[in-house]
Structure formats: C-alpha cells, structure tokens
C-alpha cells in the first residue's frame, strides 16, 4: 500500500485560515509542490501580499517576507538583487497586484526581474470585505458597486496577463484556473514552468490564476466554481500569452 497523494513539504502543518472552499488553498498547495519538486525549497524566499493571503508566511515552508500592500514585486526585487542565486516568488491578489501595485507589477516585468509572480484573480477584494477589484466583472455586485459594476462609473475589468505580456522583460505570462481537477493540473504545470523560467534566468514570469471567493461572491463553494467557469473564464480567457521560444 502506498500513499498516492502526499502532503507537500512545501507547506507547513498550519491550518489555513481561508474560508471554506476558497481556492487560495489549492493555489498554495500547487506553489508549494512546485517549489518542492524543483528542489529549491531551501533557497526560496517568498513574498506575501496584503490581502487574504497575508498570512501566507505561516504556510509556505521557506523563508518568507510580508510586504506592504501592492509592493511585493519591489520587495522581491530587493531580495533578488542581493541574492541572485535564490528563487524568489510573490503571491498576490488582484487588489494587491492590479490596483495599488500596478506600477510595481509593470516595472518588475519591464526590468525582466528574475522572479515569479503567482497572481490570484478572484474578481474582488477578499480580505477587506468584498469591494470591487480592478478585475471585478461588469455588472458584478460588490460592497462598493452595490448596483453592479458599471463601466461608465467604475471602469472596465483589467486583463493583467494580456497587459503584462506586452512588456519586453516578461518571459512567461499565462492564465490558468483552479476550478476543475484538469485545470488544477494545468495550473500546476504553469507554475512549474514559471519557476523554471526564473531558475533559467530568462526573465519575469507570472501565472494569473482564476480563483474563487465564495464568501464575498455570496455563493456556496461549489456555486463559486461554477461562477468562475461561466462568468470569469469568458472574460479572462485561459492560455499562454507569452512564453520563451523553444520551451523551458
């Protein structure tokens, strides 16, 4: 008899604080597995955001830094410039990365900084109580778009992967989702590839992961997965937007 699934060493034993069914947990596991499988756990430094993943330093089983809201890419840059041999990743939500951290995101990519960003797009500000994020869909109700997001007042959803893919220093930019086992496996491959791009020194890599926020979407976890599939994926198409030529 053998364990077919094993809890990755990349995670600590700490119970996750996320709401039931929140897919932040899946993404944590995938990132942790990737780091472990690449054998770089001991030279990895992770940078957590301010957002629901603010406690990620309690979960990832490596050295961790808690950054100010939106500034994880800058913090990661500081680390990587001091320790060029280390593996550095940021884990950021859509408020963190695509709102307050927009400049840091664009420029970490433009510098071709050799770090990996895991970007959790859940179309909402989870931690602060369900406000509109830049990625909130048109018509979506949030605590700050109580009548649904209207473009002429609150603007349009921002497609981060597409935007960052236009930047020269970006080496690998992809969008995945964690709503089905199949997509989860694809997400895992993407995350592995992103870290590989970093390790090979090819430039900046970013994996946008479509994720759920059952709590602030006001849906049960299974309903949230369905909403992700039916509403989010059409607005945020999955796929690679930029990849190193010749593969990694």
């Amino acid at each position, binding site marked *: 008899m053998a364990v*077919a*699934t094993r809890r990755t060493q990349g*995670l600590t034993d700490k119970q996750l604080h*996320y709401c*039931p069914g929140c897919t932040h*947990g899946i993404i944590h596991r995938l990132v942790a597995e990737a780091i472990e*499988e690449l054998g770089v756990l001991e030279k990895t430094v992770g940078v957590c955001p301010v957002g629901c993943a603010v406690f990620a330093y309690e979960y990832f089983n490596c050295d961790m830094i808690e950054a100010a809201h939106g500034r994880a890419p800058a913090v990661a840059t500081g680390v990587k410039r001091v320790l060029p041999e280390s593996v550095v990743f940021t884990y950021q939500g859509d408020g963190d990365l695509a709102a307050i951290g927009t400049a840091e995101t664009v420029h970490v990519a433009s510098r071709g900084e050799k770090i990996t960003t895991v970007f959790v797009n859940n179309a909402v500000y989870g931690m602060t109580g369900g406000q509109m994020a830049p990625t909130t869909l048109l018509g979506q109700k949030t605590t700050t778009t109580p009548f649904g997001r209207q473009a002429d007042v609150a603007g349009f959803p921002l497609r981060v992967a597409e935007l960052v893919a236009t930047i020269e220093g970006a080496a690998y930019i992809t969008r995945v989702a964690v709503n089905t*086992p199949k997509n989860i496996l694809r997400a895992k491959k993407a995350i592995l590839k992103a870290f590989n791009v970093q390790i090979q020194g090819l430039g900046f890599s970013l994996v946008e992961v479509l994720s759920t926020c059952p709590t602030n979407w006001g849906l049960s976890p299974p309903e949230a997965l369905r909403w992700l599939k039916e509403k989010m994926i059409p607005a945020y198409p999955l796929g690679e937007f930029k990849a190193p030529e010749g593969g990694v």
Partner: protein
Amino acid sequence: MTQVFFDTERCKGCELCVTVCPKKIIKLSAGEINSFGFHPAVLTDGEKCTGCKFCFLICPDTAVTVIKEEGGNGKSTDEGQ
C-alpha cells in the same frame, strides 16, 4: 483498491470534493462536527472509488489523502491524469 481518508480537523466542509467526485461517493457527515464547527467530508461507498484523486486535487485544505494499494511512488499529483 484505493482508500481515501479525510483529515476531519482540517476539513471545512466546503463540498468541493463532493461535487468533483466522478463516483459521487463523498458527502458531508450530517451528524459529526469538528472543533471548528464544520461538518467534515466522509466517504459513502469506498468500494466505488477509482483513485482518480480529483478529491485530493480540488481540496483547498489538504484534508484528503488517497492511498493506492498497488504501485504509486507517492510522488506528484500528475499521475491522476
């Protein structure tokens, strides 16, 4: 044969495994309640399990362990495919 275990204390009763199991053999325990107040997932009909690991893959709280009788090097999750 495959065995599936749920870590009752980690489980938050989110039902993601329930909806994803192709064999529909997972449900939330009606009576049991863990110390965080959640009804944890349980297997209804373990015999039917195919070992597809979907439950493991989707679980946000690493509450699921799948054990296969034959083979299986205990490595990555990709084998699920």
